C-alpha cells in the first residue's frame, strides 16, 4: 500500500480538493456536469479538455476569460423607473426653441399606457460643463459632474419595450420575455467568482421595494440556480438564513455542527468501502457546512461599515438624509469588489411610479428627489474607487431600463412618459474613454439616430470589458447555444480607451 497523506475526509489532497464542497455559489456534482449546460462545453476560453478536475467540478471557481479583461468587476447603478435623458445627460438646446410645440407628426412611437400627450419641454434644470472635457451634465447631478472626465455617456441607447416590466427584464437579461439568465449570471458563469464565501453576483434593492417583475430580473434562467443573483441587505445579516434562532449561540451551533460531522463521517465511510470517489457527493456536502459556518461571519463583515473611516462615511453621505441608503449601498459595493465579488447591481428606486424614477407627474419633483439620493453616493464611489486604484479594474454603469419623452404629459403637466427609442446611459472605469459622448439622439432627444446602441450592444460591450466574447459565451439549453445577446450585439469599440 502506498503511503498517502490524508486530509480531513480521509482522502488524498487531490481527492479532497476535487470533492470540496462549497464556493458560495457552490459545487455542482458530476451529475450536473453531465447535464445540458456542461455536457460538452465550458464557459471560459480555456480548452476544456485540459481543465483540471478542480476547475471542472466547481462552476464558480475562477475561470480564464476569453481575452485580457479590462474589468475584473462590474457595478451596475440601476436607475429603476427610467430617468429622463434630456434632463440629465443628453443636452438638447433645440428644445428651448421648440418649447410648447408638438413632436413632429412623422416621429412614430407607442404612447405607453395611452397617456396624455403634451408639448416639447426643455430640461428642467440647466446643463453645465464638467471637468477638463467640458462634458455637459445637468444640475440634477452636480457631484457626478465633477467626475465628467471619467464618464463615457452613451446618448444613443435604445431598447425593445416601453413597459417597465419587460424593459427591466430586457436590460437585465437581453430579452423582454422572462426566463433568461441575467447579465450578472453570465458574468459569473463565464468568469467564476474570486471569493468562495460570498456570492459572486449581488443585488441590492431599494428599501421601497424590488423592481417590477421581481426575481426574473436577477434570475439565472435556464442555468443552475448557482449563477443567480443573491439579494444582499445593507446591514445586519445581508443574506437570508445567515443566523438561526437567537437562543443558539455560535458555540452551541459549533457543537451541533460537530455532531452532524460525526454522523456524516460514519455514513460516508460505509459508502467508500469500494472506492473513494463513491462518496464524492457526500463529501461535498460535508464540506459545504464548514464554509457555511464561516460565511456566517464573513458576510456580515462585508457590510460592517464601522470598519470605515468617518471621512469615508461622510464622503458617501452615510448617516445623512437623503443619501444614507444609497451611500451605504455604494460603499458596500466597493467593499464587495475588494472581496472579489464579480457583479453588483444597486437599485435606485423601488416599487412603482414616484417611488422610482418613473416621473409621470413631475420631472422636477421626481428627479429632484431621486437624484438627491444618489448623486453624492455615486460621485463618492467613483472617487473612492479611483483613490484606491480600483477604478481601472472596475466597470461602473449608470442607467435605467429606458428613457423618457422630450414632451410633457399634457398642457402644464410637468411629467414625461416612457421612451424606449432613445436614452442615455454612462460607463466609467476599466479604461473606458472618459469625458466623451457617444452617439446621439435627434434634435429633440426623442430617438437615437447616430451610432445607435441597442441594449444588446451595451451587453456585448460590458461582456467584452469583462474579457468575454458575447458570441462565444454560450450556454447549451434546449438544443441551442444560448447567449446573452442572442443573434445581435456589437462591441462599441470607439469607447474603449
Amino acid at each position, binding site marked *: 500500500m502506498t503511503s498517502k497523506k490524508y486530509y480531513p475526509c480521509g482522502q488524498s489532497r487531490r481527492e479532497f480538493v476535487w470533492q470540496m464542497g462549497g464556493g*458560495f455559489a457552490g459545487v455542482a456534482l458530476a451529475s450536473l456536469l453531465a*447535464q445540458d449546460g456542461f455536457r460538452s462545453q465550458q464557459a471560459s476560453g480555456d480548452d476544456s479538455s485540459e481543465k483540471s478536475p478542480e476547475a471542472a467540478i466547481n462552476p464558480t471557481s475562477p475561470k480564464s476569460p476569453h481575452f485580457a479583461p479590462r474589468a475584473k468587476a462590474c457595478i451596475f447603478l440601476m436607475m429603476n423607473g427610467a430617468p429622463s435623458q434630456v434632463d440629465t445627460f443628453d443636452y438638447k438646446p433645440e428644445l428651448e426653441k421648440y418649447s410648447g410645440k408638438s413632436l413632429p407628426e412623422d416621429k412614430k412611437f407607442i404612447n405607453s399606457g395611452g397617456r396624455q400627450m403634451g408639448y416639447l419641454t426643455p430640461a428642467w434644470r440647466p446643463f453645465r460643463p464638467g471637468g477638463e472635457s467640458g462634458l455637459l451634465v445637468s444640475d440634477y447631478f452636480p457631484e457626478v459632474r465633477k467626475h465628467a472626465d471619467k464618464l463615457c455617456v452613451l446618448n444613443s441607447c435604445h431598447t425593445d419595450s416601453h413597459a417597465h416590466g*419587460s424593459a427591466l427584464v430586457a436590460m437585465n437579461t437581453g430579452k423582454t420575455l422572462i426566463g433568461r439568465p441575467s447579465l450578472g449570471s453570465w458574468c459569473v458563469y463565464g468568469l467564476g467568482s474570486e471569493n468562495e464565501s460570498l456570492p459572486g453576483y449581488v443585488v441590492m434593492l431599494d428599501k421601497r421595494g424590488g423592481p417590477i417583475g421581481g426575481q426574473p430580473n436577477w434570475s439565472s434562467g435556464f442555468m443552475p440556480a448557482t449563477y443567480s443573483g443573491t439579494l444582499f*441587505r445593507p446591514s445586519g445579516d445581508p443574506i*437570508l438564513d445567515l443566523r438561526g434562532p437567537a*437562543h443558539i449561540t455560535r458555540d452551541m451551533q459549533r457543537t451541533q455542527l460537530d455532531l452532524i460531522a460525526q454522523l456524516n463521517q460514519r455514513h460516508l465511510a460505509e459508502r467508500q*468501502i469500494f*472506492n473513494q470517489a463513491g462518496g464524492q457527493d457526500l463529501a461535498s456536502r460535508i464540506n459545504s*457546512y464548514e464554509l457555511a459556518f464561516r460565511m456566517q461571519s464573513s458576510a456580515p463583515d462585508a457590510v460592517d461599515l464601522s470598519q470605515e473611516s468617518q471621512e469615508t462615511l461622510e464622503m458617501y453621505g452615510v448617516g445623512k438624509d437623503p443619501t444614507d441608503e444609497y451611500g451605504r449601498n455604494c460603499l458596500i459595493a466597493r467593499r464587495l469588489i475588494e472581496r472579489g465579488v464579480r457583479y453588483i447591481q444597486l437599485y435606485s428606486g423601488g416599487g412603482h411610479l414616484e417611488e422610482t424614477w418613473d416621473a409621470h407627474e413631475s420631472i422636477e419633483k421626481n428627479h429632484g428627489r431621486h437624484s438627491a439620493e444618489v448623486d453624492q453616493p455615486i460621485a463618492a464611489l467613483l472617487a473612492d474607487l479611483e483613490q484606491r486604484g480600483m477604478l481601472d479594474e472596475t466597470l461602473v454603469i449608470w442607467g435605467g431600463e429606458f428613457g423618457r419623452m422630450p414632451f410633457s404629459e399634457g398642457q402644464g403637466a410637468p411629467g414625461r412618459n416612457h421612451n424606449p427609442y432613445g436614452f442615455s446611459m454612462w460607463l466609467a472605469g476599466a479604461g473606458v474613454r472618459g469625458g466623451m459622448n457617444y452617439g446621439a439622439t435627434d434634435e429633440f432627444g426623442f430617438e437615437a439616430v447616430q451610432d445607435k446602441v441597442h441594449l444588446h450592444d451595451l451587453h456585448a460591450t460590458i461582456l467584452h470589458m469583462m474579457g468575454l466574447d458575447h458570441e462565444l459565451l454560450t450556454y447549451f439549453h434546449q438544443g441551442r447555444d444560448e447567449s446573452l445577446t442572442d443573434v445581435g450585439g456589437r462591441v462599441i469599440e470607439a469607447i474603449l480607451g
Partner: protein
Amino acid sequence: MHPSKNRWLVIPLASLFVATALPHFAIAAEPALAIDAESTDDQFFEQQVAPLLVMHCLECHQEKTPSGGLSLATQNGLLRGGDSGASIDEDDPKDSSLLARIHDGEMPPIKQGRSQKLDDDVIATFEAWLLRGAPWPENRRLELYERTSAVRAGRNWWSLTKITRPSLPADYANNDSSAPAINAIDAFIGAKLRSENMKSAPRAEKALLLRRAYYDVIGLPPNDQQVAAFLADDSPDAWEKVVDDLLQTPQYGQRWARHWLDVVRFAETSGYERDQEKAFAWKYRDWVIQSLNEDKPYDRFVLEQLAGDELPERNEQTVIATGMLRLGTWNDEPNDPEDYVYDRLEDLVHVTSTAFLGMTVKCARCHDHKFDPIYQEDYYRMAGAFWAGPIAARDREWLGGPNESELGIANVLGWTDITNQPSPLRLLKNGERDQAQQEVAPGTLSMITDLSRDFAPVDSNVKTTQRRLRLAEWIIDPANPLTARVIVNRLWLHYFGQGLVRTPNNFGFTGEQPTHPELLDWLATELMDNSWRLKPLHKLMLMSETYCQSTLNSEAEQYNLVDAGNRFWWRAERRRLDAEALRDTLLFASGELDQQLGGPSFRETVSPEALEGLSQKSAAWTASPESEQHRRSIYMFTKRGLLSPMMTAFDLCDVTQPCGQRDITTVAPQALVMLNNPFIHQRGLHLAEQILSEHGEWKDRIEALWLRVYARSPRADEVQLAVRYLQTQLPVFAQSDFAQSDVEGQAAQPEALCFASLCVGLFNSNEFFYVD
C-alpha cells in the same frame, strides 16, 4: 443559353446516360460500396459529393430563398450560378468560383468569429468532382434534411425512425421456460454489462431498497413499522407486494404529478409587472394527480391536455386538462401586442413539442432548424394549431385565455379556440412580423416520414378548428416514434437518476443518444401494447434487479475508469432529496404532514427579507394560516415573481420554461437554510416536544428520535454520540437567553429546545438527505 454552357453540359449528360441503367439511387447510400476511379459519376455524386453538399452548403444554398441567389439543391441551380455570376467554369473547372471560395475559406462562411474552412480532403473531393465535369444524376434534388450528417440530423435520425419491438437478447430469449421469468430490463442491461465484462451490483439492503422505492413512488420515506414489516417478510413476493401497494396509494399521483408539472412549466401566476394569479390553475394540478392515480392511458392524457375542449365527450375535467396551454407566462403589457402574439405561439409550440415529443421545434421560428429536420414552415404548420386561440391582446381580465362564455365552463382555467375560421397564418422571415411570407396550411411536422398530414378545415358549424385535436392525434399515433420513447425515458429518469436518453427534453441532434436503444424501444412498445398505461411500466422498472441493485459495487474502482458516468447501470445512483421531498419529509418526520388531497394551493410564510424583492412588497403576499402550511409541497402556491427561497435553494426549477430534469447542486447556502431557517427549527421543536412527552428516559428518547428520522434504531455508538451531545448542550441551553428566540412556542423549555437542536442535527445529516 450561352453557347459555352452547352459545351459544359456535354460531359455530365454522357455520364448520366450510363447512370440511368443503374438501379435506384438508394443503393448509393450503402456505405459498403467502395469508391474508386471506376465508380460511375452517379455513384461518385451520391457517395462523395451529395453528403458534402448537404452538410456544408445546403443550409444557405437551398432552393426556396437561396443565399446569394445560388441554389445547390439541383443541377439547374448549380449551372445557373448566383448573383455574382457562374459558380463553375466549364473551360477550366479548377478555376471555378465555387472552388475558389471554398479554397480561400470564404465558403462556408465564418461562424461566430471562427473559420469554417473545409478540410483538405473535402476540398479535394469537390475538386475531383469538378474535374469530372460536376456530374449530377438526372432529376436528383438534394434536400437539407434528407440524411443525417456530422452537423445535423436528417429524417433518418434515430429518434425519428419507426419503433419496432426488439427481440430480447439471445441468451435470455432461449431461457428455460421453467425458470422464473426474467425481467426484460435486466435482460437488456445484463447483456450490455456482460459484453463489457461488467457485473451489476448486488441487491441493495432491504431497508435501503424500501426507502428508495418509497421516495421514488410516493416522494416520502417509509416509517419504522413499514420498514420492520418488510424486513420481517420473507415471502417470495414481499417486494412485489410493496410495489403494488405503493402504486395504489394516492401519494403516487402527488409525487409523479410534480415531475409532470416541471415539464409543463406549471406556476399559478402570469409573471411580469402585475404577476396576476391564474385562478383555478390548481384544478389542472389536481387533474394531473387524479389522472396518474387512476392510470389514465398516456395517449388519453396527452389528448385531453391538447384538445380536451374539442372532444365529442368533452366535460369539465377534459377542459381543465387544457389548462396546460394556459400555464405559460403572460405579459399584459407587451411592447408590441401584435408581436407578442408570436411569442405566445412560441410558448405553446415549445411546451407541446418539448413535453410530448422531446424536440426543440421552437428553434425553427426564425429559420430552418440548424440541427434537426424541422423546416421553418413546419414550425408555422404546428403553430397553426394554436392560431385560433386567444393569443391576441384582449380584455386584461381574461389573463390571456378564453373568457367564461367562450370556454363554456365556469371557474376553470382552460383553453379553447375563439374562432373556427382564423385568418391564415403566414411564415415570418427571420421571425419578424413585417416580413410576412407565404400562408402556411396548418398541419403536422414533416420530420416523421410518412406520417405528415395537413389539418383538414372544419365545417362552419363546428365550434373550434379541431386543429389541436388533429395535432394530438398525430402525437399519439402509435406510428409516431417520439411520443412513447419520450415518456418511457421520463419514467426511467426518475427511477434510475438519469434517462436512457440523458437529455429528456431533447431527442434531437444536440441531445444525447440512448445508452440502450433497444431497451428504450422495447419499453416504448411495451407501453403501447399495454394500452398506454403507465403503472405496468412503473412496476416493471421497480421489479427489475437493475433497479434493486445497491449503489455500491465492489468493482467500482475499476468500473469507474471505463464508465464513471454509470451509463451501463452497474450500480444504482445515490440521489439527494429534491426540494419537495425534503420539505415533505421534514413535516413527515415531525409528525405534522397533512396528507389531504387536492384543492387550492397554500401560501407559505415568507420572511420579510425575502419579500423585499417584490415591487409591491408585503401587499402582494399573504401567507395561508399555519394549519394549511403543513400540506405536501405540490400544493404550495407558485408565484413567478416570488419563488419560495427555501425551495429555490434546493434547486426548484425555473418555472417559465419546460424542465425535464432538475439541476442538483451542493452549495453552502443550502447548509445555511438547514441550520438556520425557522421552518427547520419549528419542525425540530415539534418533534422534540412530542418525543419528550412520550418518553421519560433519555435512552428511549434517542431511540424514538432515530426511529422517527431514520426509521431505524440507533447503533450503540450513535446512542453514545447523542448522549454526549445532550450532556454538553443541556447545561448551555439551560443558561441560554430565550427572550429573543423566534422559534414558535415561546414557552418551550430549555430541555425541549436542546433536544430540538439534536433533531435538527439529524435533519442535516447525509443519511437524511440522500437516498441510496
